[in-house]
């Protein structure tokens, strides 16, 4: 059952109209990445390394190029040299240089007249490798003497290792972070119970159902176009230009409809290859569509983590101190979200003394990409699992204990800054009142509770709004619509202008149409593009009031906008009948020209979002199989603009978290090759695996947004990992500290306990 904690007083905000792109999406008309084609188009295919770590000795494409219809082959030799920093990392990941760094790493690409021909040609490109020692697991990779991956890619945060004996150098540590406050040793000394445990999570993939796809066209002059499924067309533009050494403004990127992203489509993979092939094939457009296997082997999964957590607690549940050391590998490149994981780890709790230590480690795996609340689910798994064990030890109710430590407005966060208005306590109170929390449990069943946190990102934002001649409005946004953004922004604009929702058209536009926009990421689209759209609408309203004032011959300040019309105010009140948006728009050509509004900014006032989940599971004691019986999500949405899509974010996040907790993982062989690169063996939850996911939309409005919005997209994936681990512990009495909690692992733990 779905509940909302408060009602809104708005005309449209908080209602559930049909999404404007719904019709196209239920009829098959909507055009996604692979649905786009052009005259004269070629098809591209990518040759990928079968080795986890190997020096590339020779690439011979002569046999492929000899085939009729094969038009171009590109290798790293076709890319500029001398890139540095993240641009270098992106180029290295796009196409291997001297060394292939992971199973699936691109080493060459070919363009041909048909998809089949391109694949045949790719098979005929002969690559000679010298296989190098590889390392996959984060704890192995951090060890002194582990195979060195891309030596020298460590940044300034890594303490210098000169003087350290060569065998003792930790080659693969590329980033180090430490922060905290208070005296943790003092805090642990004051505790009645101190527990310290180690936890591990495996890499998982965002698992969007739409594989990466693009059509790229670029001439010798460096002018180009790209049609691509992405969360951020300007990111694609900037990154492709950097990797290819072309000018950003010369590349025009149009986003298609996007079949899911969850962070995985905020960066580039094969997009520069399409452009490089096109440039080499005389400017003919080149289409590249990844197979599922390519998606799993060569696009961004999330990091895998190894984590030590120590917490001190008083008998009454009050936390006195906490310490976390997280080690994460994000593939053969810097960028594991260890910092974000640490920021979120203890964010829900007011703790006098906290210490955080993090290491970003290289391993022979694909470059990790953002995945919904990057890092936060891993940290939550470790911290919320340990808190659950401590509550059992001290006989405390998990919600009471969390309420005892919960951060409130004005409390200092675990990462420093003081919290503004937040809704953690409200989510805890809400789940306690929900019927699921008191549902009776049978044998082998258990209930788990966990809390989670994620920030809300502002980000570069540019929005444009124009009033049409008939008084309807068009809004141009730069954040692709992954889950209903068009409807939430349409609702806010219609609410602000005082016109019907149906009279607003929200367009996701290409890079030529707006200033730079960051992607739809960081739970920012409804917050940031929404806030900018509202401000743009207010600008247009100001202009319309001016036009009306001109018609009436009164001072614009003496005009107010209400219910879709300009009205004389103050001393002029009632002197003239209201002038509607339709009348003003009809005359705009003769009263000063087009009426529009723009807003460009990096919006402040982001509102973080807390959530609390409650899950009931049943574990088969003979097989170790876990069945999710009930699932409840309560999360602070600030204010739900379109409640159905807010619920959808809660439910989708929970489902991904359930998959991560129970079955999803990257499985590597001793040869360093990925063993489960198809959906048959990379096990995302199917419909029959899940119960209905119940939601409670808690609304503690964010004062930083005109309609109180908080980003809601990411928090929902954070609590499920520990919530399910806690439920399994309640059902079986055994605690699993290594995800995923597969039947073999659960059964082994149950048997180990039975054997004493």
């Amino acid at each position, binding site marked *: 059952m779905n509940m909302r904690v408060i009602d809104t007083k708005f005309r449209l905000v908080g209602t559930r109209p049909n999404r404007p792109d719904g019709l196209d999406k239920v009829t098959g008309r909507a055009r996604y990445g692979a649905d786009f084609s052009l005259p004269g188009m070629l098809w591209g295919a990518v040759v990928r390394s079968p080795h986890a770590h190997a020096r590339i000795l020779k690439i011979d494409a002569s046999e492929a190029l000899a085939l009729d219809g094969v038009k171009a082959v590109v290798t790293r030799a076709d890319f500029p040299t001398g890139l540095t920093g993240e641009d270098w990392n992106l180029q290295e990941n796009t196409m291997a240089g001297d060394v292939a760094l992971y199973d699936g790493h691109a080493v060459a690409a070919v363009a041909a007249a048909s998809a089949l021909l391109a694949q045949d040609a790719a098979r005929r490109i002969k690559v000679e490798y010298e296989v190098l020692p590889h390392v996959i697991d984060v704890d192995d990779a951090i060890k002194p003497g582990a195979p060195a991956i891309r030596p020298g890619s460590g940044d300034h945060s890594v303490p210098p290792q000169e003087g350290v004996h060569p065998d003792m150098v930790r080659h693969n540590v590329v980033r180090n972070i430490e922060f905290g406050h208070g005296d943790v040793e003092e805090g642990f000394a004051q505790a009645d119970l101190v527990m310290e445990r180690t936890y591990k999570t495996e890499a998982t993939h965002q698992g969007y159902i739409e594989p990466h796809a693009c059509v790229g066209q670029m001439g010798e002059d460096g002018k180009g176009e790209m049609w691509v499924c992405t969360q951020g067309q300007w990111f694609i533009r900037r990154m492709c230009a950097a990797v290819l050494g072309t000018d950003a403004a010369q590349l025009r990127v149009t986003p298609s409809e996007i079949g899911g992203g969850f962070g995985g489509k905020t960066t580039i993979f094969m997009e520069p290859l399409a452009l490089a092939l096109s440039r080499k094939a005389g400017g003919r457009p080149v289409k590249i569509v990844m197979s599922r296997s390519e998606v799993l082997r060569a696009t961004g999964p999330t990091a895998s983590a190894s984590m030590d957590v120590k917490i001190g607690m008083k008998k009454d549940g009050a936390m006195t101190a906490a310490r976390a050391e997280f080690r994460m590998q994000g593939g053969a490149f810097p960028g594991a979200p260890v910092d974000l994981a640490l*920021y979120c780890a203890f964010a829900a709790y007011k703790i006098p003394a906290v210490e955080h230590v993090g290491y970003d480690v290289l391993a022979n795996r694909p470059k990790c990409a953002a995945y919904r609340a990057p890092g936060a689910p891993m940290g939550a798994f470790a911290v919320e699992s340990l808190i659950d064990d401590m509550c059992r030890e001290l006989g405390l109710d998990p919600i009471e204990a969390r309420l005892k430590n919960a951060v409130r407005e004005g409390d200092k966060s675990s990462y420093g800054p003081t919290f503004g208005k937040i809704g953690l306590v409200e989510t805890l109170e809400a789940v306690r009142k929900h019927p699921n929390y008191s549902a009776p449990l049978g044998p082998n069943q258990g209930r788990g509770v966990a809390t989670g946190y994620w920030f809300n990102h502002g980000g570069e934002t540019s929005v444009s709004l124009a009033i049409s001649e008939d008084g309807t409005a068009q809004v141009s946004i730069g954040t692709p619509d992954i889950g209903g953004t068009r409807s939430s922004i349409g609702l806010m604009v219609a609410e602000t202008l005082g016109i019907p929702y149906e009279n607003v058209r929200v367009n996701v536009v290409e890079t030529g149409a707006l200033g730079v926009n960051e992607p739809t990421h960081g739970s920012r689209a409804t917050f940031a593009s929404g806030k900018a759209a509202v401000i743009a609408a207010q600008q247009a309203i100001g202009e319309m009031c001016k036009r009306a004032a001109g018609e009436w011959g009164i001072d614009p300040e003496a005009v107010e906008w209400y219910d879709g019309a300009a009205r004389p105010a103050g001393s002029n009140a009632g002197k003239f009948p209201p002038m509607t948006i339709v009348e003003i728009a009809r005359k705009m050509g003769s009263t000063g020209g087009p009426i529009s509004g723009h807003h460009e900014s990096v*919006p*402040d006032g982001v509102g973080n979002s807390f959530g609390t989940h409650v899950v009931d599971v049943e574990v088969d004691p003979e097989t170790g199989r876990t069945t999710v019986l009930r699932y409840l999500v309560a999360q602070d949405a600030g204010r739900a603009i379109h409640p159905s899509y807010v619920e959808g974010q809660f439910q989708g996040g929970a489902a991904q978290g359930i998959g991560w907790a129970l079955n999803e993982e990257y499985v590597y062989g001793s040869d360093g090759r990925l063993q489960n690169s198809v959906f048959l063996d990379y096990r995302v939850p199917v419909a029959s695996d899940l119960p209905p996911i119940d939601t409670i939309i808690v609304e503690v409005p964010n004062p930083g947004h005109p309609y109180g919005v908080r980003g809601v997209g990411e928090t929902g994936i954070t609590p499920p990992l520990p919530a399910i681990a806690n439920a399994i512990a309640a059902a079986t009495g055994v605690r699993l500290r290594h995800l995923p909690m597969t039947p073999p692992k659960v059964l082994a733990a149950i048997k180990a306990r039975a054997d004493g």
Partner: protein
Amino acid sequence: MVEVNLWSSLKRFTGGELVVTVEATTVGEMLDALVAAHPGLRPFIEKGVSVAVDREMVSGRHAPIKPGSEVYLIQQLKGG
């Protein structure tokens, strides 16, 4: 004067100081003053940091900082 709270690993570049006091009325001035006082911080600040001023993540260099404002330097935040 503003007190800027750094993250611990930056202590290596500030002579062990976790809280650095600088003269600044905006975020930009604050970041520049930090680099001037402690050149070792330059690569971190050039790579990009998030700044929290009085309970808010602020974005622009021109964001004002009042005397006595709560100021934190945080590693850059993004998301999925």
